[in-house]
C-alpha cells in the first residue's frame, strides 16, 4: 500500500543529508513558483528524469502515482475556465443557455495552462523529495526546523504504527472480500463499517499490550529522538 515508502529506503541518494534534500526541494518549489514558464518546463522534465534514475522506479509505476490526482486537476481546470457571458466572442465553444452563453473563457486559458504547469512542476518536486527521503530522515528535518518535541515523538510513533494498522486492515479486508463482503454497494458500505470497527478495536488492543511492553523497556515518559 505504501510503495513510496519502500522506494525511499532503496534509492541512490538515500544517504544524502536530509536537510540538504529538503533545501533542494525548496529550490524546486521556488522554481515552480517563479514566473518564467520555459524554466518550469525544464525543471519538470529534469526532475522526472532524475527521480526515475535515482529511485530505479519503472516509468509505469511512477506515472501510476499521478492517476488519483488527475481527476482533480481536470475538475479544477474546468472550474477555472468555464464561465457564463453575454458576449459570445469571449468564449471558446459557447453554448447558449437562456440569455447567456456558457463556454470556456479565452482570457482564462493561459492562466489555466500556467496553473497546470506550476502544479505539475511542484508535484514532481514533492514526489522527488518523498521518493528519496525516508520518513525517518524527515523527522530529522522536523527536528532541525525546531518543531515541538512532543509533536515529533507522536509523528515518529505514528509512522511506526501505521504499518501495524495497514497489516490488520489488509488482512481484514481480504477475509471480507473472500466471503463476498464487497459484492455490491450496500455490502461494501456495511463491510467498510465492520472494518472500521475492527480497526478501532485494534487501537485498544495495541494500546493495552504496548503499555506492558513500555514498562518492560523501562519507559519513563519520553521517547528519545
Amino acid at each position, binding site marked *: 500500500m505504501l*510503495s513510496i515508502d*519502500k522506494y525511499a529506503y532503496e534509492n541512490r541518494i538515500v544517504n544524502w543529508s536530509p536537510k540538504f534534500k529538503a533545501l533542494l526541494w525548496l529550490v524546486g518549489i521556488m522554481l515552480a513558483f517563479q514566473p518564467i514558464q520555459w524554466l518550469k518546463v525544464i525543471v519538470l522534465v529534469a526532475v522526472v528524469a532524475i527521480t526515475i534514475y535515482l529511485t530505479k522506479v*519503472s516509468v509505469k509505476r511512477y506515472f501510476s502515482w499521478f492517476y488519483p490526482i488527475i481527476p482533480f486537476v481536470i475538475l479544477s481546470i474546468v472550474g477555472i475556465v468555464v464561465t457564463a457571458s453575454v458576449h459570445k466572442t469571449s468564449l471558446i465553444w459557447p453554448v447558449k443557455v437562456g440569455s447567456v452563453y456558457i463556454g470556456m473563457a479565452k482570457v482564462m486559458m493561459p492562466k489555466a495552462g500556467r496553473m497546470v504547469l506550476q502544479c505539475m512542476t511542484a508535484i514532481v518536486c514533492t514526489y522527488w523529495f518523498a521518493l528519496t527521503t525516508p520518513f525517518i530522515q524527515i523527522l530529522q528535518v522536523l527536528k532541525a526546523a525546531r518543531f515541538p518535541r512532543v509533536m515529533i515523538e507522536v509523528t515518529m510513533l505514528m509512522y511506526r504504527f501505521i504499518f501495524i494498522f495497514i497489516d490488520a486492515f489488509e488482512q*481484514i479486508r*481480504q*477475509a471480507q472480500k*473472500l*466471503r*463476498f*463482503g464487497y459484492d455490491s454497494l450496500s455490502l461494501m458500505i456495511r463491510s467498510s463499517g465492520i472494518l472500521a470497527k475492527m480497526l478501532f478495536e485494534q487501537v485498544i488492543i495495541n494500546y493495552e499490550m504496548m503499555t506492558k511492553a513500555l514498562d518492560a523497556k523501562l519507559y519513563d515518559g519520553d521517547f528519545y529522538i
Partner: protein
Amino acid sequence: MIELKNLSFSYDDKTKILNGISLKIGADDHKVIGFMGHNGAGKSTFFLNLVGELKPTDGEILIDGKPVVYSKKGLRQLRRKIGIVFQNSDQQIFYSIVKDDVAFALHNLKLPPAEINRRVEKVLSELDILPLKDRPIQYLSGGQKKRVAIAGIMVIGSEWILLDEPTSGLDPDGRARMKKLIQKLVDNGQHIILSSHDMDFMYETCDYFYLLGKGKILEQGNKQEVFNNEQLLKENKLDQPWLVKIHQKLGLPLYDNEQELFANDGQHN
C-alpha cells in the same frame, strides 16, 4: 482440479516471488495437499493467487479446465469453488456472536434466512461447535476461534479449502483436534490444501506434498518421497518429521503416523 500454467507473480516488478510455476493440484487420491517452504518462501503469495486476491503477473490458473476470469463475476465464482482460512482468526471474525459470523458469507450471497440457518447449524455441528452457536467470540479459546473461522468458510460449500498455518497458537490438544477435523472434511468430500511450519503435523495430515522455494516448486511427491531428501529440506530451512528421522537414522520402519508406530511397537522390541 486446479491447474497452474507457468504462473509468475511479483509485487514490484523487480523480484519474482513466484517464478514460472506449472502444476496440477488435486489428483484423485490427493485429498490433503501440503505446501511447505520457509518463512518468506512465497506460500502466502501463492495462496492469495489461488483465490484470486492477487492476479498473476504472468501465466494462468485453470479451475476444472477453465481459466480464472478476473472480473467481479469470475472472482465470485472462483471464491465459491475455493475458500481460504487465514492464520490469524481475530482478523477474520467480524461479528461478536458465533452464528452471526458464520452466516456472514451466506447473508452476502442473499440466501433466504431459513436456508442460512440450516447451513450454519449443519456446519457448526460438523465442526463440533454447535453448543457455541450463541456464544460471544471474545470468550472462546484460540482453538475454538479457529473452528469458527473455518466454519465461516465451510458454509460457502466450496470444493477446496485452503488452510494457512491451521495449528499456529494451538496447544497440543487443539492440534490433535485439528488433525481430526481435517480428516472429517476429507470424509465430507472436500479437498484441503494446507501450509504449516509444523513438519510433524504436515507429515501426519497430508497425503501429497509440494516444496516451495526460490519461487519454484523444488520437489513434489508423497511423504516417502519428499521427506527422504534431508539435504533439500535443510537447504530450505525445513526439518524432517521425527517419524522419518527415526526411520532413516535408527532403521525403524517408516510409519505414516505415530498410532501405527506404537500399534506395532510390540513387534520390534
